[in-house]
């Protein structure tokens, strides 16, 4: 038992142990995706690949029980990551989630192709992840409850002190970062953070008191 070819294993294989990978944060992975999107950075993509490819392979092997198909899924998924990184947006979810949804769609299509059916529905029709022209506007009409919710929240939000309301508006309505708000209003970042915290606390009180 003690003659395990240890050196060979460490040299030939990359082992992603959980302790090591926990250091890779969501923000860091997001930055790598942004680098791929903005500058076609091969270095950033290599890092993403080394993080995700072994995970995708393990996932796909569990799903298909077939190594070749699993490798096809890894390659298809990561090819999409390379070419479509600009479609990732951190507001919609983490990089892991985005890449999972690409893999999920590819798996769905692979399983159906195997059945040789004509005129299949593609996963992209059901879960549009990679379509360029995805617009959210058409979906607003149907989320009626959301509109009512927004109206209600609007009332609470008018009850906030001006200083807090302005900060909340810039962050949650205009989508600015706390740093940007700090720069634009020329107030310290700490103040932006505490106003945000107080405002959210106040809103939460108003909403729960209302229920």
């Amino acid at each position, binding site marked *: 038992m003690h003659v395990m070819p240890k050196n060979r*294993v460490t*040299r030939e*294989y*990359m*082992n*992603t142990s959980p302790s090591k*990978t926990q250091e890779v944060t969501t923000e860091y992975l997001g930055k790598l995706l942004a680098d791929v999107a903005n500058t076609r950075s*091969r270095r950033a*993509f*290599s890092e993403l*690949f*080394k993080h*995700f*490819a*072994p*995970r*995708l*392979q*393990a*996932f796909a*092997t569990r799903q298909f029980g077939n190594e070749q198909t699993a490798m096809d899924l*890894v*390659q298809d998924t*990561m*090819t*999409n990551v*390379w*070419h479509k990184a600009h479609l990732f947006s951190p507001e919609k*979810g*983490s990089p*892991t*989630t985005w*890449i*999972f*949804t690409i893999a*999920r769609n590819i*798996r*769905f299509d692979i399983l*159906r192709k195997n059945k040789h059916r004509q*005129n*299949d*529905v593609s*996963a*992209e*029709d*059901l*879960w*549009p992840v*990679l*379509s*360029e*022209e995805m617009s959210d506007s*058409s*979906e607003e*009409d*149907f*989320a*009626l*409850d959301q509109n009512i*919710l927004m109206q209600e929240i609007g009332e609470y939000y008018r009850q906030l002190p001006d200083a807090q309301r302005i900060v909340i508006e810039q962050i949650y309505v205009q989508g600015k970062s706390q740093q940007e708000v700090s720069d634009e209003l020329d107030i310290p970042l700490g103040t932006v953070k505490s106003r945000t915290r107080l405002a959210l606390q106040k809103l939460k009180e108003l909403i729960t008191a209302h229920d």
Partner: protein
Amino acid sequence: MIKFHPTEELLVKYTQGELDASLCLVIGTHIDMCPVCANTVKDIEEQVAKRALNSGSRFANTDIDNMLEQIMNSSAPEAMLREPALKEVMLEGKQFKVPPSLGRLGSRLGPWSKVPGSVWRAPVDIEGQHNVNLIYMAAGASVPEHTHRGSEATLVLNGSFADEFDNYGDGDFIYLGDSHRHSPQTAQEDCLTLAWLDAPLQFTSGIARLLNPFSSLFFR
């Protein structure tokens, strides 16, 4: 307010891509209409993704290098072109808005045909099967009491209907297993639903039983 939602189990299977395309369509359309489930699905996606991709297998370095090269030298895939989504359907002089998940498959919507009892249906062709239908019930219409050999999922797109169990309105999603019998009917208001069946209906009462041999013509 939407009262009836898919179970969490269904939403998880939906997120994992483990349901029929046809049932995915009905659930996706509910999610378009339901901010609550849209949020739940976002959470489920995060969790499912973390679990699916939490650990890696050993990956040979030569494989890594080869695949990396191939990918970074590959040409960009063509942009995915999609047909313009269907925005609304017209029936009996009325216009109904179509949520995006259904709209994206709008070209698969077949012609309307009339079914006994002031009911119309139009099949959605998902891989040659017709187990998803738009079903329109005029005001005061009823579908004879029936049961299913399989399950049935119904999503109210517009209007309301009732059965022995409850009243259902816009966005409500009702899932019935094979043991349930029910007889949907509309009152003053008409109702447009998107309905999924995994086996033809079985009519259970009175003269409607005579329809059984033909039920697949109506609803599947």
